[in-house]
C-alpha cells in the first residue's frame, strides 16, 4: 500500500469513526445530559420514561422531530431558508478535524488533519458558523429571526477578538500553532492551567499560572459567547425575540440548529481541553506507542475531559441569567479585550525566564 492511499484510508476511517461513533452520539446525548443536569439542578428528575433512566430519549426525540411537519413560510427565501441550518452544523463538525483526540493507535496519529495552522483553522471555521445563523434569520423574512441574526453576527465578531487574543499566551510558550505540539508541550512542561505541576520549586512557573488562568477564563467566556450558550444567548433570547433566529424553523431544520449548537459546544470544549487541560494526556498514562490499549485509554481520557467541560457549560447555563445586550458588548470590548491584551504582555515578560 502506498503511503498516500494509506493516509487516505486511515483518514477516512478516522473521520467516519470520530463523526459517527463519537461526535454525533455525543451531540444527541449532550441534549439528554443537558436535560438531566438541568433537572438535577432544579430538583427534578428529568427524562426517565423512554428506556432505562430515559437513555433512549434522544432516539425518541429524533423520531418526534423527523415526523413533525416541515413548514416553510411563504414569505421566506426558500433556497437560503433550506441552506442555513446546514451551514449551522457544518463548521462545528469540521473544526474537530484539527483537534488531536488521542495519541496514536497502531502507529496512526489520532488527529484527522495535523495542519501547522491548527488554532487558526479552528477560529476560521468557527467564524463561518455565524453564516448559518445570519442567513437563517434573514431568509425567514420575519422580524424576530432577523434581529436574532443581526445580534449574533455582532456578538460573534466582538468575541472573536478576545477569543484570538486569549490563546496567544499559549502559543507564545509553545512556539507554533500546531495543536499536536500544544499537547506535546503540555506533556513535557505541565498543563497550561497548572504549569507548576512537576516543577514545583520553580517560582516562574507559579507566576505563570496567574496569566494562564486569566487566559483560560477569557477564552472560556469567549467560547460561551461564540456558541451562543446561556449567559450570552442573546441571538435566541426567548423573552425578547420569541425564539431568535430559529423562530420560523420547524421539524428537522430546527433540530439541525439545535444539534449545531451542541456540536459547537462539543468542539469548543475539545479546543479548551487541548489548549489548557493537556489534551489526551493524563499523568502516569503513556501514549499509544506503548500498546494499543494505551492509545484507546488516551482517547477515552480526552473525551472524558471534554465531557467534564461540557458539564461545566451546562452547569453555568442553569445558574446564570442572561446578560443584557449592552452589557454583553461592554464586557466584550471594554473588559475581555483589554484583559487578554495585557495578559499577552505579562506572559511575554515571563516567557524568557521559563525557557
Amino acid at each position, binding site marked *: 500500500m502506498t503511503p498516500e492511499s494509506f493516509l487516505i484510508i486511515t483518514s477516512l476511517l478516522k473521520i467516519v469513526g470520530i463523526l459517527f461513533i463519537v461526535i454525533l452520539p455525543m451531540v444527541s446525548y449532550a441534549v439528554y445530559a443537558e436535560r438531566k443536569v438541568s433537572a438535577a439542578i432544579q430538583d427534578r428528575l428529568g427524562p426517565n420514561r423512554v428506556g432505562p433512566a430515559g437513555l433512549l430519549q434522544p432516539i425518541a426525540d429524533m423520531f418526534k422531530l423527523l415526523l413533525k411537519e416541515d413548514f416553510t413560510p411563504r414569505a421566506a427565501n426558500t433556497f437560503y431558508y433550506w441552506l442555513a441550518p446546514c451551514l449551522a452544523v457544518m463548521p462545528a463538525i469540521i473544526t474537530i478535524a484539527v483537534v488531536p483526540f488521542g495519541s496514536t493507535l497502531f502507529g496512526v496519529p489520532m488527529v484527522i488533519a495535523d495542519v*501547522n*495552522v491548527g488554532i*487558526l483553522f479552528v477560529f476560521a471555521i468557527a467564524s463561518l458558523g*455565524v453564516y448559518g445563523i*445570519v*442567513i437563517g434569520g*434573514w431568509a425567514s423574512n420575519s422580524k424576530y429571526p432577523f434581529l436574532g441574526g443581526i445580534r449574533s453576527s455582532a456578538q460573534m465578531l466582538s468575541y*472573536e477578538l478576545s477569543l484570538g487574543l486569549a490563546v496567544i499566551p499559549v502559543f507564545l510558550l509553545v512556539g507554533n*500553532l500546531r495543536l499536536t505540539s500544544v499537547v506535546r508541550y503540555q506533556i513535557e512542561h505541565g498543563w497550561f492551567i497548572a504549569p507548576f505541576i512537576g516543577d514545583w520549586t520553580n517560582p516562574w512557573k507559579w507566576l505563570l499560572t496567574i496569566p494562564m488562568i486569566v487566559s483560560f477564563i477569557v477564552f472560556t467566556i469567549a467560547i460561551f459567547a461564540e456558541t451562543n450558550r446561556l449567559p450570552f444567548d442573546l441571538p435566541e433570547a426567548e423573552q425578547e425575540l420569541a425564539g431568535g433566529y430559529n423562530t420560523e424553523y420547524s421539524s428537522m431544520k430546527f433540530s439541525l440548529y439545535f444539534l449545531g449548537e451542541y456540536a459547537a459546544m462539543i468542539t469548543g470544549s475539545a479546543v479548551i481541553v487541548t489548549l489548557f487541560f493537556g489534551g489526551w494526556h493524563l499523568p502516569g498514562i503513556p501514549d499509544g506507542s506503548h500498546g494499543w490499549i494505551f492509545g484507546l485509554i488516551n482517547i477515552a481520557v480526552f473525551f472524558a475531559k471534554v465531557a467534564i467541560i461540557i458539564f461545566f457549560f451546562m452547569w453555568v447555563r442553569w445558574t446564570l441569567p442572561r446578560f443584557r445586550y449592552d452589557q454583553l458588548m461592554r464586557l466584550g470590548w471594554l473588559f475581555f479585550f483589554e484583559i487578554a491584551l495585557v495578559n499577552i504582555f505579562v506572559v511575554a515578560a515571563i516567557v524568557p525566564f521559563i525557557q
Partner: protein
Amino acid sequence: MSPFLFWIFALLTLIFGAAVVINRNPVASALSLVVSFLGLAALFMSLNAYFIGIIQVLVYAGAVMVLFLFIIMLLNLRAEEARRINWLATAGGVAVALILLGQIFSVISHLKFAQNPFPPLAGLTVDDVRNIGAVLFRNYNLPFQIVGVLVLVATVGVVLLSKREPR
C-alpha cells in the same frame, strides 16, 4: 495536490466569482463571494501556503463578509433585484474582461520563467507561519509598524466619526 482537486477548487472560485456579478440579490452576491473566497483559500493551501489560506477564510470570509452581509441585510436593497439588465453595459463589461484576460495571457506567455514547469513543492515540513512571521518582523519590521499605526489612526478616526455629538 491532485489536479482533480485543483480543477474543482479553481472552478468553484471562478463560478462563484461570476455569480457575485450575475446575482441580482445582494445577499446572494455576498454569499457567492464567500464561497469564492473559500475556493481561493483551498488553492492557497494546495500550494502549502496554509497560513495565507486560513487567513483568507478567517479575515475575509469570517469577518469582512459578515460585516458586509450585516450592512446589506440592514439596508434591505430590494431595488437592485428589480433593476433591468443593461445589455449594452453588460456587453462592454464582458469585452473589457476578455481583453484583459487576453492581455494577461499574452504577457505571461512572453515571460521566460512561465515556460518552465512549476517546481515541485517541498514536503509538508515547511512551517510557513514561522517563515512569514520571521520575514515580517525581521526584514519588514518598519513598514509593518507603519501599517499598524495607519490602521490605528483609521480606527480612532472611525470611532470619532461615529460618536454622537455631545448635547
